[in-house]
Each structure stands twice: as C-alpha cells, then as structure tokens.
C-alpha cells in the first residue's frame, strides 16, 4: 500500500530506469508495451499537431509533451468506457491512453464534419461519449464540482464505476476546485482528483500559485488521502492510481493524487514566443533531460524488454497523418449546426434566427 502525504514523490523507477525500493511488477509484457506505445503516440501527436498548426489547419494547441508519464499511467489504471473522466484541456495523452482514436481527436482539432463536438468548441477541447470522456470546458477548474456530482451519481446508482477528474496546478487556486473536493469528502464519493502539476500555470510558477508545500497536502482540508507521486514515472503513477481506484470501488471514498511533472513545451501556441520571459532555458533543459519516455525505455531495457522506438514513432506518425487525411475528407459542417444543441429542440426564437441567417446565406 502506498502512503499518503509523503515528503518526497512516490517513485518506482529512477532516472536510470532502475527499480527503486522493493516491489513486484504486476503488468504483463503486453501492457508494458502498450503503455510505452501510448506515451510515444501522445508525444508524436503533439509534434504533428504543432506542425499542422503552423500550416494553419488548426488554430489552437496545448502540448502535453513531458507529461506522458502522468497521463498514460493514469489512463492505463482506469477502466475505459466504464469509469468516467472529467478531463482538462491538456489531456490528449490521457485520451490516447484510454483508447480514444486519434481520428476522433483530430476531427475535433480540425472541426471536420465528423467532429463529435460539431465544431463548436475551440480546437483541442475534446469530448467523447463512448469513453465517458466528458467534453472539456476552457474555464479552469469548473469541471471539478461536476466531476464530484458524477461520482455521487455513481454512488447513488450503486455502480462500481469511479470518476477521475484531472486539472493543472494552477487550477487548484480556483474556488470551484475547493468546492468540488470538499463536497466529495463529505459525500465519500468514488472520485480521484488528479493534479497534473507541471509546475507552471502559463507564466506563474508554483510559489506564485500557492504557499502550500505541495498539492497533495491540500487533501488534509477535505479529510481524504493525498498522494505525492513522481509524474514522470509512469509506473509510479500507474501503481498509485490502480491501488486508489480499487479502494474507491470498494467504497473507501475520494483521494487526491498529485503527479509532479513538467511541461517542456510552451503553454499553448499563443504563448510560444513569450515563454522566455518567465522561465529559464536551463530549467526547461533540465526537465527535458528527465523525459518520462526515455526513463521508461531505460526501465524496459533493464527488464530485458526491447522496443523498436523508431518503428513505433514511425507508426504513430502514420497514424496521425492518415487520420488527418481521412477526417479532412469528411469536410466541415454547415453554418446551421450553429443553431442546434442549444436546447434539446430548436425553440421558436432560435428557429427565427436560423431562418434569418438562411435567407442571408441564400442571398
């Protein structure tokens, strides 16, 4: 059993890929390979999206590069399509790890006709019903209280589902974050709050965000355990999350898991040039050298498991390219989707507005 409230982040493997402490691997070779492949796929997704962003095919993108240990570790520890996820906007690695198809993600980024969200949200704000991956809101931390509600519903319905709610370090400052965790504590709802602490909220560092020693200790305020985990150690993340998830299914109530990681890319494309004003290249380089994928590859090698990294990358690149071609071919939705899904049906006043635009478009 992992201990909450440790002073140092929980780790399973060191930078050198060697095991830390005594533990037995409970993952099959296949699972390990999939984990690795998903991390690479997430990284490649980032790289490709930055490229097509430059080409003007999409207008917004926020990389999760450097955070794959956290996102894929988490994804592989929950039950896709069974558990519910209230993610935040930087969770492409989580989506990929859960099994969401790259094509579905790209359809949203490009706003094509097969975009499940019908081209209404900014690019990179996914939502995939099949995976219970709830549509992302840009408004920081406002998924937290709803996530608690979903967990309360799961409890009410007597399911063995859990809810996972993710967010950044910056999100923990919002009032709604507090509201969601406090209510979950009282309700003993089966929800895991996962902080992807990448140490920056745009240009604001951790010390500018909160004076607490870390995020995990904030769990004291809600009567739930807080785990402080090395988020660049995919096995540590996977192990803590798996354990906590199973306890939650057994009715043990909510938990907060902080995954300490780093965003090695810019906050978003809108921030790309501004970065140097607020963080040093040395810091970025230091964390680049702590790459979660490399670390995991060292572990796999130490375990005698060889992976053909180049082939995996190449396959991932093809996967994204093919998805782009395929989804682009579906075209883009017409102007009139704008007037749907405001309500279940189209009420009279909106129908009038639609007719007004129709006349305009047809003129």
């Amino acid at each position, binding site marked *: 059993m992992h201990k909450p409230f440790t002073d140092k982040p929980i780790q399973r493997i060191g930078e050198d890929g060697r095991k830390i402490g005594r533990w037995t691997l409970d993952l099959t070779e296949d699972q390990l390979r999939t984990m690795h492949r998903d991390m690479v796929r997430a990284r490649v997704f980032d790289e490709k999206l930055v490229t097509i962003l430059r080409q003007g095919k999409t207008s917004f993108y926020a990389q999760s590069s450097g955070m794959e240990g956290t996102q894929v570790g988490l994804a592989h520890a929950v039950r896709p399509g069974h558990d519910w996820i209230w993610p935040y906007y930087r969770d492409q690695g989580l989506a990929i790890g859960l099994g969401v198809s790259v094509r579905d993600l790209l359809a949203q980024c490009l706003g094509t006709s097969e975009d499940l*969200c019908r081209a209404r949200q900014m690019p990179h704000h996914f939502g995939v*019903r099949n995976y219970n991956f709830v549509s992302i809101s840009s408004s920081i931390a406002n998924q937290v209280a*709803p996530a*608690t509600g979903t967990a309360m*519903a799961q409890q009410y319905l007597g399911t063995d589902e859990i*809810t996972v709610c993710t967010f950044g370090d910056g999100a923990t400052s919002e009032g709604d974050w507090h*509201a969601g965790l*406090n*209510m979950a504590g*009282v309700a003993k709802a089966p929800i895991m709050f996962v902080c992807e602490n990448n140490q920056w909220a745009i240009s604001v560092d951790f010390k500018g965000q909160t004076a607490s020693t870390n995020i995990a200790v904030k769990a004291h305020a809600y009567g739930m355990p807080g785990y402080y985990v090395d988020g660049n150690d995919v096995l540590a993340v996977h192990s803590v999350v798996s354990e906590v998830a199973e306890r939650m299914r057994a009715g043990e109530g909510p938990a907060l898991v902080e995954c300490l990681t780093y965003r090695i890319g810019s906050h978003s494309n809108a921030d790309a040039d501004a970065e140097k004003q607020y963080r040093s290249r040395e810091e970025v380089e230091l964390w680049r050298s702590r790459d979660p994928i490399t670390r995991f590859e060292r572990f796999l090698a130490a375990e005698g498991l060889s992976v053909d990294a180049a082939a995996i990358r190449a396959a991932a690149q093809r996967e994204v390219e093919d998805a782009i071609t395929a989804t682009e071919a579906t075209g883009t939705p017409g102007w009139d989707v704008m007037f749907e899904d405001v309500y279940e049906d189209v009420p009279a006043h909106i129908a009038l507005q639609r007719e007004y635009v129709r006349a305009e478009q047809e003129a």
Partner: protein
Amino acid sequence: MTALQDKETAVSTSATLSLNLIQAINLAMREEMRLDERVVLFGEDVGARGGVFLATEGLQAEFGRRRVFDTPLSEASIVGAAVGMAVRGLRPIAEIQFADYMGPGFDQIVSQAAKIRYRSGGQFTAPLVIRTPSGGGVRGGHHHSQSPEAYYAHTPGLKVVMPSTPYDAKGLLKAAVRSDDPVIFFEPKRIYRAFKEDVPEGDYVVELGRAAVRREGADLTIVGYGGVMPDALKVADALKAEGVSVEVVDLRSIVPWDRETVLNSVAKTGRALLVSEAPRTANFMGEVAYTIQEELFDALLAPVSQVAGFDTPYPYAQDKVYLPGPNRMLRAAAKLLGY
C-alpha cells in the same frame, strides 16, 4: 384568484387540493420523486430542516437521506454536483437558498449547465432544475430580495421559468424536472403563501414556453411574471370597474417566452404595459418591449411602457417604495390609455 388554464394541458388526476404556491412546489417534487427514481433533491438545509421556506418539508422523511440531502455551504458545489449527476443520468433538483446566492454558482450555471450540450455536440446533457426563491417584498434587504432572472435569460442554453400561481407552480416544476435542458426555476417568495388555489393531485404539466392569458381585454395589455402578477390582476380589476378592459398575460416562462401570445394580445389592444421588479436597466422586459415595437410598430397606439424596479441595489427600509405596486401600475396604465 382564478386562472384561465391552458386548454391542452393534460390533466389526469385523482383529487383536487387547495394549496398555496409553496405547497404546490412541494407536491410537484413529491410526485416527481415518486414517479422517477432518478430524481434527487439537495441544497442547503433542505433535509431535516425542510428548506428555510419549507419548500422541501417532509421530503427527506419520505425519500430518505440518499435522495434528499443537505450539502456543504457552497453554491458552486450544489450547481456543479447537479451538472455532474445530470450528465451521469440522474435528474437532480438543486435548491439555492436565495436567488441572491446564485453568485458563487454563477460560473457553474453559465459555463457548465448552459453549455455542455452545445459544446459537446449533444453528447452530454444537463437535465437539471435549479429552484430558488427570488424577488422582494419580504424585508430582506439586498441579499434576500433580488430578481436576477435577466442574467440567466441572457444566457443561451438555459430555460428560465417563474410561476405566479399554485397550479402553474406545480405544472411548471414537473415540466422542468422532465425537461432535457437545464431549467432555472425562480419562485416568487413574496407570494409563496399569498393565496390558495385548487391544484389537482397527480400528473399534469404546464408546458414550458407558453404564457397564460389571465384576463381577456381589449384596451391594454399588461405583461408580467412572478410576484407582480397578483397586483397586475388587481389593477385589471380596478380598471374594469372604470370601464377599461385590460388583458393580462402571465409569461410564466421567461426563456423561451411566448412571443405569439404577447404579440397577439398587443396587436389587439395596441397598448402594452410590462411589469417586473428587477432593476430597469437591461432587465428582461426590455427584450419584450423591443420585440413588440419591432413586430407591431404600426399597431401600437402608445409606446410600450415599463413598470420595474429601480437602478439601485435592493434597499431594506424602502422596500415598499422600491417594489412596483398597484398604484404605480395604475399610473402607468393611465398614461398609456391617455396617450
């Protein structure tokens, strides 16, 4: 007070009770909870306490603490939880203790509840009801008297409702619970216990989006909703005694509002007096006024006129001066009739 009920309202009931507005609300929740296991009810002090106005009295006793429960003191938690429950398949009814306290839950209402269907392309929806007492007249000062409906009426994705009679309160609340969209259900607290009316037991709904014509008339249309309605009716009756025939339209639904009923009425009378109690500037009636003058420019015999609250925070001691009462309505009506 009698109401001209909608013709199409399907009433399949057993008995008829004489209830005031808050009792009708209580009954609506009780019935919906009996009918549908997915309906849960929560908020501050709604459990053992039965709500500070007793709207939820007896419901925890009947349905237990799993379905009717108190929450921590946080409107963001309450609304947020309702959104998350609704997304996962429940039909939550969330009580906000006073409409004045929707503020801390505002972002949850406008960014989550109102937009989740749209932003997800219809993949996720939030069929929830937020019930909250609103309006003045109870000596509550500015934190227990406000009428914030315009904020929500201006937020696409929300339905906004305010009953003014026990019959409607029950039927509208039942319709709100069954609606697949988030509904903000304002309860005019100053008439919670103002009068009783015959309310059928059992199942009927008052369709959202339809106004009620409370009085038929030919000379002037008064449009209102919520707590101002009893006074509006008094005014119509007083004018009738003077030989002026006033049509009174109770909007009941603010979003969507019943353009057709209002426009038909004003097309007939040529004069419109819009009555509400929220501050005048940018209140909801501005929208109604705009629509009337746009659609009926040539039919209007006088400018569309409003009686509303003033552009001050709701004052404590001047409560009576602030609220539009029958005298103010009469004065405005006289001006319109003499235009």
